[in-house]
């Protein structure tokens, strides 16, 4: 199979579009991981819940996923805050493995409750722009991907401004860098953990919501994003949200071009191999901070 330049560029573009979504999901995961030192296994399940909320608000109220995202953000911020308050706060000092297990349990719980109520049916949102696309220079741009991409970029910029300009954002970053020091300057880290988990969850849920116009909703929808987010987080360095934003784009492009030049089924295993390789040979990730010891 010869590689055509246009087709290659098309697949790179596809990678950038989906990569922005990975960026958003991963930024949420890395914030939680870096600040609370919790490997949040439930991140994908919470994203999937966000997708369902977008689906149902569209189904019953006819709301466009981009609009419902405005409601989904605060709702999932509150949900994340509650999960921290009732579950995670009690184990913040426990071993990292205990934390991994509790979020693993939470995932099993959420996924199977969803499965029970809504079955494994594949659901799709159709919007006014669902089948809209543009041609330019031999390339095809389809509206759902492009719109979701710009929405994700907007969220990314918003996140950056929040973390660098607002006092809560600064407190989150201070807590991530040194929990004890943050406390000594009067930051109430308990509350910050709640905010962080809320923010991380909201980011995942919004990322889920804005792709429902082209990505099918089902109880397993979050899984692939969870695993890819792990890859992105270690690639972009633990706790570094800018690293995650950049890393998401990289993984998106690597994944889509693998699918194009090699084999679609190899996309995910390849990403996993990348993950292991980074963990073992380059524990600092691309942008600093050691993961080991």
């Amino acid at each position, binding site marked *: 199979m010869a590689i055509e330049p246009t087709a290659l560029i098309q697949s790179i573009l596809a990678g950038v579009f989906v990569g922005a979504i990975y960026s958003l999901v991963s930024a949420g995961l890395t914030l939680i991981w870096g600040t609370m030192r919790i490997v949040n296994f439930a991140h994908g399940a919470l994203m999937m819940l966000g997708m369902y909320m977008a689906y149902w608000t569209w189904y019953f109220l006819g709301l466009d996923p981009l609009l419902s995202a405005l409601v989904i953000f605060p709702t999932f911020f509150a949900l994340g805050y509650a999960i921290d308050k009732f*579950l995670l706060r009690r*184990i913040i000092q426990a*071993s990292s493995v205990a934390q*991994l297990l*509790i979020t693993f349990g939470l995932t*099993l*719980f959420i996924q*199977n409750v969803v499965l029970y109520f809504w079955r494994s049916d594949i659901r799709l949102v159709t919007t006014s722009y669902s089948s809209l696309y543009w041609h330019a220079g031999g390339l095809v741009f389809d509206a759902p991907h492009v719109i979701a991409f710009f929405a994700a970029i907007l969220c990314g910029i918003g996140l950056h401004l929040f973390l660098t300009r607002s006092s809560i954002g600064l407190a989150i970053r201070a807590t991530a860098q040194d929990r004890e020091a943050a406390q000594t300057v009067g930051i109430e880290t308990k509350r910050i953990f709640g905010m962080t988990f809320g923010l991380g969850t909201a980011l995942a849920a919004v990322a889920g919501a804005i792709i429902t116009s082209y990505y099918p909703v089902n109880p397993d929808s979050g899984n692939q994003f969870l695993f890819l987010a792990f890859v992105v987080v270690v690639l972009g360095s633990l706790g570094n949200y800018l690293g995650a934003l950049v890393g998401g784009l990289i993984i998106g492009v690597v994944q889509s071009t693998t699918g194009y030049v090699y084999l679609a089924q190899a996309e995910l295993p390849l990403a996993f191999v990348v993950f292991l390789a980074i963990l073992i040979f380059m524990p600092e990730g691309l942008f600093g901070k050691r993961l080991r010891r």
Partner: protein
Amino acid sequence: MLTRSELLPKNVYLLAVGLLVATAVVPVVGLSNLIIDVMLDLFLFAFVSLGWNLLAGFTGQINLGPALYFGIGAYSAGVLFQTYRITPWAAFVVGPAIAAGLALITGYPTFKLKGDYYALATLVISQIVLLSFLAWDYVGAAYGLSYDIIPFSWYWFQFNTNHLAYYYIGLVMVLGALGLTWRIRNSEFGLRLMAIRDDEEGAKSIGINTLRYKLVISMISAGVIAMGGILYAQYTLYLDPNSTMSLTITADIALPALLGGVGTILGPLLGAAIIQPLEWLLRFTIGSNLQLAIRGAIFMMIVLFIPRGIMQTVVDKYIRPKMVKK
């Protein structure tokens, strides 16, 4: 040897083994097939959980990909029988050997990682193998392997007309795994593994090559879990990657030990004795989705309320204080 810290008075272990042996006699009295199947699952998951506990309990390394070894065992039996018409008993050599080999290869780089990163890495490795099996025609890819059914044959390791044979094989395997755990717990090898769990740098300082010890126990652990996979394959007689290697199976393997007590000898057995009948009951009454949701809730409860498992909690609260007084 001088007396050691027994986790429990010896009588408790004797009682547990006595109870197990008693279950060997009970079926003679006559049990419904359903109860035999429940007990069979109990034995199977007690067995693999004991295997998982060898690594997790002695060295404190939480492997989140044991389903990989389970699947390897199951597939080794399936491929031997279905593709080559070789007796599945041979899988007890092939399966554990491949599993141990994989444990060695994957353990070498991943044992450098700490706690949660090790757990994540093992999880990802098992996902890679799962995805590979889904695409691998030799093992039937996503369709899996269906056994040709043989009514009852010791040679072909199939006992469809009478599940009691599986039952006894499962019982023997559990007793074997308990014996193995007991032997290791009471050996210097076991003590050194526990030294690694308690303080890895300290263990190195007294001359323990910690990586080598972890590799050896992880190979044993993988081998035991693979044997469980063989038993599973021989009584379900149908294999596909998702039913033998998925995260659900990992949860099946780890949960009994986590509930009963990681690092205790009887914990996994106790855990399986609680979990398996409960899950059967739930599956029949409220369906498998809610049963799995409840399993998720149980995971969370364990971490929140009895992070050290039932055995350790009981020992710490009631038994140890009395022993010290004496």
